[in-house]
């Protein structure tokens, strides 16, 4: 593989890696994150809208990160403060994200249609593309460091393994999960922003749909490990970027090509489950479990 192919894949890699990294980090705190696709799609729409109105990619990125972060906080708060089903809370935020994305994106698309704004995407020179590898990987290393070497990381992992024990040892589970939600969802928002700013600078209804689920599978199949996620994100990025050309070589249609990432995602999840990987990189023991702490009322 020569360097130019690697550079071509860079925007796709950045999108998936950031989103998967954030997702895995958040889930380490024990919150099952089924809202990812909806909020990813919302981040995509917010990025596009802000980019179109301001022609400033950095402002668009910031807006997407902030909006996404708010939902991360909401999900972490609801699932930790109330004894509710993580799955149902996540899916409802997913639907909300889809709806809000359509609402935010549509007027921006019309505005773009009437004014012809473009050129808000990141530049396409080799240096920028190299940075699209470097920056996310540095973020990944930092997260790995936080998780394994800091007090915060220990608290996050404790909240994910056994929130009751963590609370008994003086960890404020709610606070820790809120922090994990903020960091995790900022990255998911940044992934959504990369999708528009670096990869596909346009918007139509449903733009970005189901890429959040691919990030979900990428993170899951790498056991939520920040460095292993580099590998799975890289594989998926290549697969998605070259799905059409791969299949064109065999004379198959684009619809078959669209299927490939999803089949790969299922295979990746299954492979993770049947190999020793699952034991070595076990998911947090309390992932998705309802957390209810009896509190003193007097």
């Amino acid at each position: 593989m020569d360097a130019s192919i690697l550079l071509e894949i860079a925007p796709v890699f950045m999108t998936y890696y950031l989103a998967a990294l954030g997702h895995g980090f958040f889930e380490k705190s024990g919150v099952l994150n089924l809202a990812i696709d909806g909020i990813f799609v919302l981040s995509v729409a917010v990025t596009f809208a802000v980019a179109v109105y301001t022609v400033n990619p950095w402002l668009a990125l910031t807006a997407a990160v902030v909006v996404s972060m708010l939902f991360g906080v909401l999900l972490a708060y609801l699932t930790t403060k109330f004894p509710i089903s993580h799955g149902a809370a996540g899916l409802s935020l997913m639907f909300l994200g889809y709806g809000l994305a359509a609402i935010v994106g549509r007027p921006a698309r019309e505005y773009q249609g009437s004014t012809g704004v473009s050129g808000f995407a990141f530049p396409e020179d080799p240096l920028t593309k190299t940075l699209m590898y470097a920056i996310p990987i540095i973020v990944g290393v930092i997260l790995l460091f936080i998780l394994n070497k800091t007090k915060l990381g220990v608290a996050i992992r404790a909240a994910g393994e056994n929130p009751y024990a963590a609370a008994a040892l003086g960890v404020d589970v709610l606070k820790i999960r809120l922090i994990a939600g903020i960091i995790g969802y900022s990255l998911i928002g940044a992934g959504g922003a990369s999708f528009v700013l670096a990869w596909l600078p346009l918007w139509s209804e449903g733009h970005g749909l189901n890429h959040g689920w691919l990030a979900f599978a990428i993170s899951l199949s790498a056991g939520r490990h920040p460095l292993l996620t580099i590998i799975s994100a890289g594989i998926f990025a290549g697969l998605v970027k070259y799905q059409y050309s791969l299949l064109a070589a065999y004379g198959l249609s684009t619809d078959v090509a669209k299927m490939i990432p999803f089949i790969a995602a299922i295979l990746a999840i299954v492979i993770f489950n049947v190999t020793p990987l699952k034991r070595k990189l076990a998911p947090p023991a309390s992932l998705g479990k309802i957390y209810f702490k009896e509190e003193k009322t007097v």
Partner: protein
Amino acid sequence: MVLLNLLKYRLIIVKRVKPIPYGGVIIPIVSLITGILLSAIILWVLVAIPPLELFSSIAHSVLSPVVLKSFIMLSLIGLALVISFRGAVWNIGGEGQIMMGVLVSTYIALFTALGTMPIVSKIVMVILAAIAGALWAAIAGILRAYLGVDEVPITLLMNYIAYYIIDTLVNGPWKGKHTWGYIRTDEIPRASRFITIPGTTITVEAVILLIVVYIAAWYILNYTSLGLRIRILGSNPDLLKSAGINVPITIILALTISGAIAGIVGAIYLAGIIHRIPYPIEAQTANYGYTGILVAWLSMLDLRAVPIAAYIVGILEASSIRLARAAVMYIFMGTVLLTYTVTRIFSEYTIKFVKKM
């Protein structure tokens, strides 16, 4: 001032001694009302749809003929999902299973000699659609039962695979000849189409199927050992294991039955509503597989409440169509599901504000 006073208190959740009386009725109603209000605020602030316009569109949809059509489809998919949800098997793949039903019934109607044979064609379509939906769901069931793979991402990802299988066929070997240049299949022969009840949006066959499936689901869940096993799977899987019951088979069957009903929904969708598969299907599906999740949850997983929940969700759907924005339905789904998820805990818990120490 009030806010300052509020800061002195903190919110805590405590277990109730007894469940809230009439919780099964109050909780869905409260969550529905708060959810719709939340939607109204979101739509008002972001899209400037005045709340009154939204409420009047909901009110106008209550008796709209479109609701009846959605009611049948949503009741059926609601039944399908309730069966698996009762076993704590989260089938989010209703869409994919419906699509498999659409696929198989299209094949029967368009490409076999059966398609032009009245009655036989419809019976074969429904049966094979049920089998196709069941098999599609069984894949996720087997993965969950024997390999411990979470069924939520698998069923979800399989929805997209189902869409693209259909797209591949419709934009390939199944591309119709009489479609005025559109990429889609030909219409299925008249003999395979369900018969519309005059003056309504529903078909005779759909009504019959709803009644049959409803009774079957009711019977399976309440009067068979399988139903009991599924219910225990949802409430106490360890008991099932220690009683020597084959847990994996129970998981697979819960998903398979669910998928079979979803497959039937697919047959009705094709033969009773669309009559041909459009392209690309993922952009034009009615999304019953997803809306069904809302139906199942609003029914509190109680089969008796499924038709009511289906009617209510049908109203929301009709009003979002009336407002001509697909986004509205997603907002409704998001907010109502969210308020439901939170209010549901009040059957067992209650919120208290206590003074900070």
